[in-house]
């Protein structure tokens, strides 16, 4: 009896292995929702990746609206379907944890994005390290300014965590390869309160008070567009520059008019591809060690975040210019 059972079980095991081999792995990407243009863009990336990797079944499946409860249910459904890997962009960290725990208990590989504080994951991928992203914004600003001149930085609030890390990173970068760039000592950091109108008025004041000011580094997605409006109105286009985070759809007009040359961002399509690539690596039993190359642009040399062995940081930033602004769809 025992022997028969053992034989049956091993047969079953073999069969399931064969089945799995035949179909490859089933890897599902769960975004925050399906309709947000940001995640529509992510789906484009995931679909592209799936077409290039026909050996596995890869697809994105989201809820119709952003809702932590719906996302929890979706992940639980996927656990019940016994998929091989779940790549999730969590809506709410606390409420998704139980579902992710259930997935891990069932032997499913769990990869997250924008969920650095999650516990029940194999790995979490962040697009970039905050300090290095700041340095990247500075590179863009320096390029616009011709690598010389007086500049200052703008954040939403002086108490905001990531914005100030970006600004610090930018200032640090400006010191190294750009000896001609000087930080405005009287106003090294101004606030926009995440409000385009305030960014616009503050920029006007800065340019009036400091006629030598040649550049402003923005961090919040309202900063650079607001500063650009001020530059345009004051008649300083081509003399004074700004760079910073910005969404393509909101800023197409400003980029095309030349008021701002570069905006920076990370591309959700590439983030989606990086999650799937990492899931494949883990499923195939490959070693995950820094620097990790996922074969996705901007995710070629991931490093572990300091003090963490699950959070990986890439260099997944991109530059948006007048030429490519229409290609993102968000």
């Amino acid at each position: 009896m025992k022997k028969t059972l053992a034989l049956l079980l091993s047969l079953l095991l073999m069969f399931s292995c064969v089945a799995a081999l035949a179909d490859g792995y089933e890897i599902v990407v769960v975004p925050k929702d399906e309709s947000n243009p940001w995640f529509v863009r992510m789906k484009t990336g995931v679909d592209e990746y799936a077409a290039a990797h026909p050996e596995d079944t890869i697809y994105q499946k989201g809820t119709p609206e952003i809702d932590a409860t719906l996302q929890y249910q979706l992940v639980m459904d996927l656990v019940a379907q016994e998929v091989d890997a779940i790549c999730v962009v969590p809506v709410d960290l606390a409420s998704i944890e139980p579902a992710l725990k259930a997935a891990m208990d069932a032997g499913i590989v769990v990869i997250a994005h924008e969920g650095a504080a999650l516990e029940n994951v194999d790995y979490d991928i962040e697009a970039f390290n905050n300090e290095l992203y700041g340095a990247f914004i500075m590179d863009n600003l320096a390029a616009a300014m011709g690598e010389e001149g007086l500049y200052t930085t703008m954040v939403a609030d002086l108490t905001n965590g990531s914005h100030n890390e970006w600004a610090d990173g930018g200032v640090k970068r400006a010191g190294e390869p750009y000896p001609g760039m000087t930080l405005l000592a009287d106003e090294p950091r101004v606030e926009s309160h995440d409000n385009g109108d305030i960014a616009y008025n503050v920029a006007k004041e800065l340019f009036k008070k400091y006629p030598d000011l040649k550049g402003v580094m923005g961090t919040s997605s309202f900063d650079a567009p607001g500063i650009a409006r001020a530059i345009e109105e004051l008649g300083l286009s081509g003399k004074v520059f700004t760079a910073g985070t910005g969404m393509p759809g909101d800023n197409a007009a400003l980029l095309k008019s030349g008021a701002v040359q570069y905006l920076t961002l990370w591309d959700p399509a590439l983030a989606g591809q990086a999650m799937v690539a990492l899931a494949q690596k883990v499923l195939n039993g490959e070693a995950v060690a820094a620097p990790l190359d996922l074969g996705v642009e901007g995710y070629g040399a991931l490093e572990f975040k300091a003090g963490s062995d699950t959070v990986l940081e890439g260099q997944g930033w991109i530059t948006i210019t007048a030429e490519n602004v229409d290609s993102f769809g968000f």
Partner: protein
Amino acid sequence: MKKKFRKLISRTEFYIALVFLALCLLIQLRSGQFFTPNNIVDILSALVVPGIFAVGAFMVIISGGFDVSFPALASLTSFVTTKVLLDAGWQGGVWLPFLIALVLGALLGAFNGLFIGYFELPAMIVTLGSSSFFKGLMQGALNSKQLAVIPVGMRSFGTSALFVAKNVESGLTSRMPTTFLVLAGVLLVTWFLLNRTMFGRGIYAIGGNPVSAHRAGFNVRRTRFLLLVYVGMISALAGLCRVCMMQQMHPTNMLGMEMNVIAGVVLGGTAIIGGAGTLFGCMLGTGLIVLVENSMILIGIPTVWKDAFVGALIVIGTGISAFQVNRARRAGLRNVRKGAAL
């Protein structure tokens, strides 16, 4: 002559004007940039939206209440207006957006007015609630998102200029926005209403004492109702001006403005308990707040101290104003008593 002077120095507006002037001189001293054509235009342009809001807030305070819902009302009406016209692909002029905003503003104002006027509930409580309600309607039911593109008519209206001021020395140019005419128009109509109609007298009378106003023959309920409708309409205008000037609709951009707007109105000598205040003082107070908010860098106040500086100005300024208003009121009472004794 002496009498005139005494009358002048007894008025709060006189002191606010002095502070205003002192601040202008300070900015000029620190930056050398205040009395330049483009800076003055910048300040006037920044005054448009808070200025229109202030007129509405001022009228409600005069009637003896506080309206804190106008930023939410303006956000909701301008969001709906922009969204509807975008979806319809409106390519025409700016008259239709203004018409839609005015109608919506009147409707939402009537909502406030119904509770404040006919159900006689305190304006502050009602508008705290309706503020949340308008916000919720926008974010929940209408699923509001930032609208990066606005109809072409609104866009060209918002960027059009009455004239362009140029600083000859620095070469900087600033646009005097056409929306400034909206502020001027609102001021004109409101001045007429308050000073030349029974409706306006009614607002002051109700703010002084609703019972006396009723006895004197004013229809208190209807006056309050119509007042809130009017305030809703001008708040909606302010919201639309902001959207046109920003060239995009950002749903939460105006929320939170009520505090500084109300502070500006009180700073301008409007009695907090209602019944007294002038449109001129209201604009002076609001202008002072706008001036301070947009001159911190010019004065050279470090960013970390900006909020503390603005806050101190509001506390000290409104304190002086309130003191002045109270003194005037006591003096008035004394005179009344003297009159009775004689």
